[in-house]
């Protein structure tokens, strides 16, 4: 098993980040074009804790080499199952996801957490991400290591692009919200 982890700070409030997070994969994000669809499967609020729990199916089109497709008999479309939890009291978003496609070959478990940053909790948000990647295919350890290394590499590239794309979404969200407020004010 290999572990990929990264963290960063977004200069936006937790409220802004957690809202924009719902449209992380929209046309404003031109860096995560491998995500082609995001569908909400279930959504509920826990009466006792107020935690919002959401299950989503994320559909990706990865550029996979043709020989890999032939070998595994798969298609370039892959699916990720994600369960997320928003705790509005402690201000924490936790997103857990796992791959559905090729799950007999490779297991990718990712956990992402967004919470107010310690230094500037009212206007900046800490993002942390951890992915556990395990090759499950039989065979030599050497080959498994290679598969895991290549997957971590791919994961880290996607993570970097994802961060850049999310920055763009945050910027657009702030602009749209302020325009909306302006519009509402003029209506009154």
């Amino acid at each position, binding site marked *: 098993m290999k572990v990929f982890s990264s963290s960063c700070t977004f200069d936006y409030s937790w409220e802004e980040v957690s809202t924009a997070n719902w449209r992380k994969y929209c046309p404003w994000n031109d860096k995560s074009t491998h995500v082609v669809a995001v*569908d*909400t499967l279930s959504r509920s609020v826990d009466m006792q804790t107020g935690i919002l729990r959401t299950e989503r199916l994320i559909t990706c089109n990865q550029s996979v080499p043709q020989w890999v497709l032939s070998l595994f008999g798969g298609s370039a479309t892959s699916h990720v199952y994600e369960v997320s939890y928003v705790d509005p009291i402690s201000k924490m978003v936790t997103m857990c996801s796992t791959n*559905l496609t090729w799950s007999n070959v490779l297991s990718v478990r990712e956990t992402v957490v967004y919470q107010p940053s310690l230094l500037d909790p009212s206007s900046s948000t800490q993002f942390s991400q951890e992915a556990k990647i395990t090759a499950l295919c039989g065979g030599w350890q050497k080959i498994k290591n290679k598969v895991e290394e290549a997957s971590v590499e791919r994961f880290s590239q996607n993570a970097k692009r994802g961060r850049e794309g999310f920055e763009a979404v945050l910027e657009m969200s702030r602009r749209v919200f302020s325009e909306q407020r302006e519009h509402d004010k003029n209506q009154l």
Partner: protein
Amino acid sequence: MAASIAPECNEIKEKYDTCFLKWYSEKYLRGNTTSNDCEELFTKYKTCLNVCASMLLSRAVTIAVAVSRTALYWRSSNNPANIYHQVVLKEKGIDSMLEDARKSTTKEFDAETLRRG
């Protein structure tokens, strides 16, 4: 907003997502966690997804069959009944993958988060 896995559902999904985002930012984050503004749209969206699932999966089958150079495919290639069976299995592909993931990971995810919280 991102598209739906079923293009036929894009319109209703867009409406639901817009409703949800408004509820989330204007009510939920401000402490009104029990309101239920978008339930009706969500039901319509889910119905659309279910209706489209079969069409969608048959599209996936076309791809799956095209790339099936696997042992499974060859074993069944002489027997039309087997082919049909494989296709039906593939048609259920996403459903069963989801079901498996739900069974094996949901508890774990829930437990992790509850422990944290």
